[in-house]
């Protein structure tokens, strides 16, 4: 969607709940997917996704068009919520062991259990994510956005509110640190 068209859509979403609902339906899968790939835990991903959209709604009325797409704005909120989560829960980094732990018994929905089983199958991804989570947040963000969300440098810069040069630099240093983590294992 072109930025102009999106600007009109956001304006309408402030008045029409159906449009807001459509925006939500369109963006939920990518935001939930991004958060899940960052935290590698379904329950945490659900909580952070809820926080992201609640915050987006709260700020919707004040949302002023600054030539940043709505989706990038949502990614930004999601990144901030993930950062908040990690700051508050320094010791609860997702790890392969955490993913393989049984689901908490207060949440017995079949859907969640099946999703958890499905997540376990992505062993390569989980092993990779375990290493990425050991990096400082600023590197985690750029690496995940670049390689897991397949975002271009320009898009990452828009999401994180940084210059493109800074993003390239962070990516380069982040990859170096990640390589060190892998090399330390071997």
């Amino acid at each position: 969607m072109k930025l102009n068209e999106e600007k009109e859509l956001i304006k309408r979403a402030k008045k029409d709940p159906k449009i807001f609902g459509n925006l939500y339906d369109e963006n939920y899968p990518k935001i939930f997917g991004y958060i899940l790939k960052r935290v590698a835990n379904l329950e945490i991903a659900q909580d952070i996704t809820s926080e992201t959209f609640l915050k987006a709604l709260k700020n919707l009325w004040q949302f002023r068009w600054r030539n940043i797409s709505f989706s990038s704005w949502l990614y930004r909120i999601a990144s901030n919520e993930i950062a908040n989560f990690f700051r508050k829960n320094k010791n609860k980094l997702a790890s392969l062991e955490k993913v393989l732990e049984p689901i908490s018994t207060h949440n017995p929905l079949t859907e969640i259990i099946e999703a958890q089983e499905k997540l376990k199958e992505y062993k390569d991804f989980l092993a990779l994510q375990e290493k990425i989570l050991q990096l400082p947040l600023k590197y985690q963000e750029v690496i995940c956005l670049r390689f897991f969300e397949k975002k271009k440098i320009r898009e990452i810069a828009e999401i994180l509110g940084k210059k493109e040069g800074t993003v390239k630099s962070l990516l380069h240093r982040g990859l170096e640190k990640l390589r060190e983590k892998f090399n330390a294992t071997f």
Partner: protein
Amino acid sequence: MEEENLIKKLEETSLPEIEIPSHKRKLKQILLDKYFREKRNWEVFNVLRKVVPVGAIAIVLIILISYSLISPQYSLAKARGIAMRDPRIKELIERGAVIKDVKILKDKAYVLVQPLAGTEMETEEIKTGLKTEEGFLGALAEIDLKEKKVSRIEKLTPPSSPLAEEEKEKAKEIAENNPEIRRIVPKEAEIMEIIPVPFSQLRLIKEKNSVRVVPEQIEEKRVRIIYELNKNQWEGEIDLIEEKVDGVKFLGEIEE
């Protein structure tokens, strides 16, 4: 590990594409519920901001904040709680309705329950007393705050605004030029009637001694065109504001 190997690994690793539909649905309901409340607060604030000088706003805000500490927020929450415990309202919510609005008047509360915007509810099993010919469009519950129970609940027949001749002509024109209508409705079919569609989204307003149900958005204007040919009928729904056809369907044969 070389950098290019690491990049290759990052690019080629299979990524989880997992969704939890129940979370998506539940979150949407919560968001839409909050949407109406936040929208109203923001509209009021916007009006104040334009009309009243900044210093006065500050004073008003201080008064509002102090008032809000002892205020009807408690009663609103109490009313919601009582409504949610009523089995009839609980059933509606389980089938996809939301509490759209709550107003307090003296020692009574009025709760407006409607289908979630943009969704269709399964209305077959809803008690017939709460349904109109068009299905479940909404219900208004009166709550006795002292007795802490729903004293009565009645179905809503949402209002519609009458159609001017120009509007009917406009609807016909939009329909005539629509490819879907041309495809589904036979050319020889005649227009039997053009009727306004009731406002789908409503809210409550408090007047002196009563609470009234009014449309959420006055800019909504939809009509239905009923076509007939050889005892068969079709219906087209037209949005006069967006100037488009929202849907066409075959209604079946008219019963004698």
